[in-house]
């Protein structure tokens, strides 16, 4: 049996009170709950406070570049679909620097779960606006406050028909862990956007700020099979912020569409130079 101890690893480097601790805890609980052994899991992370998460777990890890969680995750998943591949990144990672991969990974639909640590700020680089920062929030760069309409990851994911779209809150580990568990279990690309207080740089979106607003859609009669309703829910942001599963549909994953993988993982293929003859036929 897999236990929490299997996933314990070294000292953490986050600020005391940071929401990341709860995300780490939620991820561990989900992996343990799903009975995944550490060596069956590959975590791909970006650069940012969030990107350090896999280092505080025990599992296969590819701590990639800032913004580049999804491409290596996809390559690894195709090479070895037997791995449970989880990508973790910040809001800057996932929606800023990595915005193009976000869109196209959804289109491609590999069976990967993306956990976006959405603290509405650039944490590691000490407090610039992120794509999800609130309008008007002032920083040393955004001296007149944020001028760009915040990126809405859920609405965009739904507009791209992403098969699993959820939002969690780092202040509610149990609920978050249940979302992560569902996301990992759901076949296809799954997004879990996590409201994560950054206690050091984001003085606006605090635990309290979120707590005063978040509510769970599941107790509200939301039907995650309804794409239009999901879209409408995704636009809700203000006094009330919905959490839970916005949208869910069955889908064929990228790997399952790759006929070649039906023979088994690429990494198990046996090389055979005899096949070369057929290739040369094309040139004579």
């Amino acid at each position, binding site marked *: 049996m897999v236990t929490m101890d299997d996933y314990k690893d070294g000292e953490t480097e986050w600020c005391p009170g940071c929401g990341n601790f709860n995300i780490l805890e939620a991820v561990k609980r989900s992996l343990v709950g799903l009975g995944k052994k550490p060596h069956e899991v590959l975590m791909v992370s970006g650069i940012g406070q969030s990107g*350090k998460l896999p280092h505080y777990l*025990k599992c296969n890890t590819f701590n990639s*570049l800032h913004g580049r969680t999804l491409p290596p995750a996809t*390559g690894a998943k*195709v090479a070895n679909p037997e791995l449970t591949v989880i990508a973790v990144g910040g809001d800057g990672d996932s929606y800023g620097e990595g915005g193009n*991969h976000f869109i196209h990974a959804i289109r491609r639909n590999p069976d990967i779960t993306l956990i976006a640590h959405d603290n509405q700020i650039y944490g590691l680089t000490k407090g610039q606006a992120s794509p999800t920062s609130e309008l008007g929030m002032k920083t040393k760069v955004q001296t007149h406050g944020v001028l760009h309409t915040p990126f809405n990851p859920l609405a965009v994911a739904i507009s791209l028909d992403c098969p699993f779209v959820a939002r969690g809150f780092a202040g509610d580990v149990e609920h978050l862990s249940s979302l992560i568990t569902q996301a990992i279990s759901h076949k296809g690309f799954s997004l879990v956007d996590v409201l994560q207080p950054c206690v050091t740089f984001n003085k606006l979106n605090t635990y309290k700020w979120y707590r005063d607003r978040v509510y769970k859609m599941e107790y509200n009669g939301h039907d995650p099979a309804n794409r239009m309703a999901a879209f409408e829910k995704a636009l809700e942001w203000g006094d009330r912020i919905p959490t839970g599963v916005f949208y869910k549909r069955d889908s064929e994953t990228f790997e399952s569409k790759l006929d070649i993988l039906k023979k088994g993982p*690429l990494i198990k293929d046996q090389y055979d130079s005899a096949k070369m003859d*057929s290739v040369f036929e094309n040139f004579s």
Partner: protein
Amino acid sequence: MVRDGFYVYGNQFYLSRVRGGHNYFQIRVSDHPVYALDEKIDILVALDTQTIPEHIDEVKEGFVLADESIVGDNVDEKIISVPFTEISKDVSGKKLFSNTVAVGAVFGLLCYDLATLKRFLSETFKRKGDEVVEKNIKAAQAGYDYVKNGKFEGICNYNLSPQPTNRRILINGNDSVGVGALAAGVQFLSAYPMTPSTGVMTRVAAHADDFNAVVEQAEDEIAAINMAIGASFAGVRAMTTTSGGGFCLMTEGLGLAGITETPVVIFLGQRPGPATGLPTMTEQGDLNFVLHAAQGEFPRCVLAPRTAKDAFNQTIRAFDIADKYQIPVLILSDQHLADGLFTYERFDTSDLKINRHLLEDRFVGSDYQRYTITESGISPRAIPGQNGALVVADSDEHNEAGHIDQTTGNRIRMNEKRLRKVDGLTDEMQMPAIHGIDGADISLIGWGSTYGPLAEAVDILNRDEVSINLIHFSDIYPFSHDTVSLLDGLNTTICVENNATGQFARLLRAELGFEVSKKMLRYDGLPFTPQSVIRELKGMGVI
């Protein structure tokens, strides 16, 4: 003709547009291997009005074949006006077959057996049904007859004697890289289309099913290289293909492969820059860039194939080196090689074996550390999950276990470990090829795709008793140990490059302290020809 035992070399010139414009294709046929175009044209087939005025001077003792409508006002006794379109309409009712008429006419002019062409047409158009095949054959025959038996009877004075063979192939540089990658066991290729590299991707795609390979078009080049790195990390041979502009976007990934020590093969087909530049032409202008791309310091290997066959072999080697040293390996080609068509005996792959340089299961345990410090700098490599092992890789500086480590002692150890791999790699590198006579007065120095024209220039000059040879590099970085002593033994050296600043000459100075005597640079977007090289040498006054 390849099947008839001739050696064919061809190359195309096209504009960065899909239709129209003055595009042309040049072919050379010989009974011995040829690797370059000749500036002297024997037969010029003009299909647009720009061809005759622009190229007639290149037709020295040969003929120009052209439709009447294209001949226009051009008067020259070399011009053989053939009503391609009319003949096509005659035999088929459509203009569509005029190109086939033209090819028939060429065969007529060559007194070449038309049966070969007919066989080719049958096979090519089989898919399209009997009627199409028949009309094509008719068109070819009519063109043939028009030239061979009509008013030009007797004009054909070539003597080409076919020696049928089945083992011979006609292949271009891009296809050779693709075939080489398949031979090396590539299983994942992610790329974003970019001229002149796309042919490698399509070649691998064409055979992917047979070879258990996945070819994935990425959303951009950043994704392309990072996907390949992910696939490689997970355990398969992976590559990406691009040209200079796309490579720009891959440089951060290159460094990622460097610090995470993930093998990856990057194919770069050069074209003239900067930026979009001349997308369909050729240049060797990206050498400096690939040598130094990405921040920080880490080992890499750069191979620049000379010919299609070399491209095949170097690609196989690239994968081996990447795996053995756990580094990125760059294959540096260009439009000249990419589109150059070469004739060879079928490449021998019978005793091809690949070594993934991976740890066997029995050496992998739960205490596995990805970045163990070793004398060679190479840390034994396992793949994620192998035998229960955890593999941890990091783009930050990390310790032996793969976790972030910012202490200075660790930094020194890890940096030195990675850089130590250059020693082994250097042992692996091959010396430049020497072509032509020994101890010549003049040595041309070249690299990459210029081999064909330079070697032929040397052959021609050697026949004329000029004391000249060619020192030609395909292993570009790092240089083999003995390179300096070879170079130091040369007399007058002329570094010949397809760029404007002499990047390779600079590399020789930077790496080896070797100073070439002169440089011959071409940067108009076209490749060297043997004749252009000889002309330049004369212009320089060295011959």
